């Protein structure tokens, strides 16, 4: 068993979990200022009230898992994106305390300030995550010593800004669909409009980004090519047909789930719409992972890329931590399901609400 590959998959699972779960609550944040009445805003906040904290834990755990399994990747990525990550931290701090403190005072200015903190924090975090993914696709300026050799501004190119906006739009759509499940009446109708608008923006940018990626980075398709483009990795070489078939299945799933979103929203089948947008997010993360495999951080000079072998912990650690993950992850899924089950149905305010 190749634990390097296993951990690549596990980090992928954590990223998918994070993108699906925190994705919708960042999306709710992005939409927050579009609603005007205080009651509606409280409904929005409380729709994610019991779950946002747990959703953010996926990010913390993904960071911890990356640190434990691929310390070189963790070290290089975090130091390369220094200022960008500081911005994310600032955004996440504001977001968290805004949620907690917003409704503590009735003063309008107080509430408005925290509303802005919550919304701007959510938007900034969503954009920067997208920019980071865009940089990994395009490759960053890494030296032979695995250290970043570029500047902060190098991280922002038209393509990476595009992926940043794309991520924001995707999360906004996902968050809007989540809100459709959680709200009713006028507010729900209002959100429905936003959900459709967000979907069309998402679909448009999705096509643009796909075209840009294929034009700028054709090697992203190497693992999809049934061996016609030289695969870098023996694993891919040995299973090139299976990997390519799987990759194309993901593409098909991706397209089907994207097409299913507007259909289900129009029909009022919001839970199905949510599952579709969750599948869309999962498929996009998988396509990204399949495209860069076995690399985790792509460098301009392919020789300097950090992959699952030259960036990983020792075999012993990978195996031990795999056991830890196998024991831990089922528990995590149990708690997560339990909480979502407890708070299923429409959001209601009571004296414990934000």
């Amino acid at each position, binding site marked *: 068993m190749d634990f390097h590959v296993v951990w690549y998959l596990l980090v992928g699972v954590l990223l998918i979990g994070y993108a699906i779960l925190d994705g919708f609550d960042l999306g709710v944040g992005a939409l927050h200022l579009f609603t005007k009445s*205080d009651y509606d805003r409280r409904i929005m906040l409380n729709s994610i009230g*019991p779950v946002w*904290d747990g959703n*953010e*834990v996926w*990010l*913390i*755990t993904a*960071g*911890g898992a*990356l*640190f*434990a*399994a691929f*310390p*070189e990747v*963790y*070290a*290089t990525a*975090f*130091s*390369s994106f*220094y*200022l960008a990550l500081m911005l994310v931290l*600032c955004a*996440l*701090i504001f977001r*968290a*305390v805004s*949620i907690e*403190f917003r409704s*503590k005072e*009735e003063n309008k200015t107080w509430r408005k300030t925290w509303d802005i903190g919550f919304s701007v924090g959510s938007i900034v975090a969503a954009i920067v995550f997208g920019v980071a993914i865009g940089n990994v696709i395009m490759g960053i300026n890494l030296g032979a*010593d695995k*250290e970043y*050799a570029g500047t902060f501004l190098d991280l922002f190119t038209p393509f990476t800004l595009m992926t940043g906006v794309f991520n924001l739009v995707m999360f906004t759509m996902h968050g809007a669909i989540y809100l459709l499940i959680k709200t009713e009446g006028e507010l729900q109708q209002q959100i429905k409009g936003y959900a459709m608008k967000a979907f069309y923006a998402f679909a448009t940018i999705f096509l643009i980004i796909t075209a840009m990626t294929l034009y700028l980075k054709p090697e992203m398709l190497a693992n999809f090519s049934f061996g016609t483009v030289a695969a870098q990795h023996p694993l891919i070489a040995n299973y090139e047909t299976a990997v390519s078939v799987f990759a194309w299945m993901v593409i098909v799933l991706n397209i089907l789930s994207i097409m299913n979103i507007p259909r289900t929203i129009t029909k009022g089948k919001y839970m199905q719409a949510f599952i579709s947008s969750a599948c869309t997010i999962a498929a996009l993360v998988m396509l990204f992972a399949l495209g860069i495999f076995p690399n985790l951080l792509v460098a301009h000079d392919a020789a300097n890329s950090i992959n699952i072998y*030259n960036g990983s*912990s*020792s075999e*012993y*650690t990978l195996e*031990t*931590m795999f056991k*830890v*993950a196998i024991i*831990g*992850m089922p*528990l*995590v899924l149990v*708690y997560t399901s*339990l*909480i979502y089950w*407890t*708070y299923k149905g429409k959001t*209601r*305010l*009571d*004296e*414990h*609400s934000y």
Partner: protein
Amino acid sequence: MDVALLSRIQFAFTASFHYIFPPFSIGMGLLLVIFETLYITTNKKVWETITRFWIKVFAANFSVGVATGIVLEFEFGTNWSTYARFVGDVFGSPLAAEGIFAFFLESGFLAILLFGWNRVGKKTHLFSTIMVAFGSMMSAFWIVVANSWQQTPVAYKLETVNGISRAVITDFWGMVFNPSAMVRFEHVVFGAFLQGAFLVLSVSAYFIIKKQHLDFAKKSFKVALIVATVVSVGQLAIGHKHAEVVAETQPAKLAAFEGLYQTTKEAPLYIMGWTDTETQKTTGIAIPGMLSFLTHGDTQAEVKGLNEFPKSEWPKAGAVFQTYHIMVGIGMLLIGLTLLSCFLLYRGKLFSNKWLMKGYVAAVILPIIANQFGWFSAEMGRQPWVVYGLLKTKDAVSKSVTSPEVITSLIMFFIVYALLFFVWLYVLDREIKHGPGHDDNGVEAGYSHKGKKIEGLKGL
């Protein structure tokens, strides 16, 4: 200013600020379990009021703790990437375990603890409270394991990959239960229990002075006082055991604790004093032979002084000495204070004692300082090493990060945290002034929701 110094300032600042909050969460978590158990067993309204009030105070602390905690996990990579490369194999594992075993547990059941009062049954709610308390201790466990390995590294081997040396785990459980892990975990958790208990004592004493919510305040006070008494006495034993471990594993740190420069038989223990590394003199009130006795069980035993180590490997003894002694001093003060209070409680004279109650209102600051200074002495006492004897702090910073970048983030953290701190104080103050009783946040005076009915206000 070089990147190493700036990164150290940033880490010290962000870690200290963060560490105001988790001890409250851990300590109050324990108290919430006790309060809620009392409510379920007695079924008395007052225990319900107590539980629900302290849950609100707990929530405000918890959220700031979570928000500021992510920063630390990121900083190992952003500011200390050379360190992350060197020890990631070892140090990353407890961090990942903390996420998987502690944070998910905490955040999941926190949802029920904070919002589930009307949604789930009493027993389910109590179970969630227990799980949150347990989860917060688990998170303390894993993070202290990680830090303890930095202090007392074992169960690793150095290997060279692509010309770069790094530490690799040879035995996972050996790394987890490294020589100082368990005693430091106990020490941290007991410190946290005290901080949580003293917050409850402080707020309850405030109500008692104001003659408000007396039944509520006295009952809260009694429970917190019993916890504080037992824990402060227990902390003395744990602290003593911890000092023995430090003497054995980090002799330079112990020497700095006590300002001991020459290796001495019958080494003294200072109650308070001043140490000067230039003249290598320590003056103050000391008990002769006590340090030898406490670390080796014999007043005549030899204790290593700083001169056994090259000067380049000395911690800043002045600061380590003072922070350590202030921590110990506060620990002793808390033992005296709680024992005296228990005696007065037994005599029925505690709550009528105005000056003592006023003292308790202010006393919340004492465990906070002790917890902060305890960490200062532990971390500064480890210097110049970031991993004791293996890697120096100055060699651990990120190579690709520049001074202006760190200055930018440092200024950002100063501004954000200052704001955060005042908002937190303001909200806490408001919660306290509001007092227990049902805070109906749904229907507010002078605040309309355009005629919408608020639902879900059961049990009011």
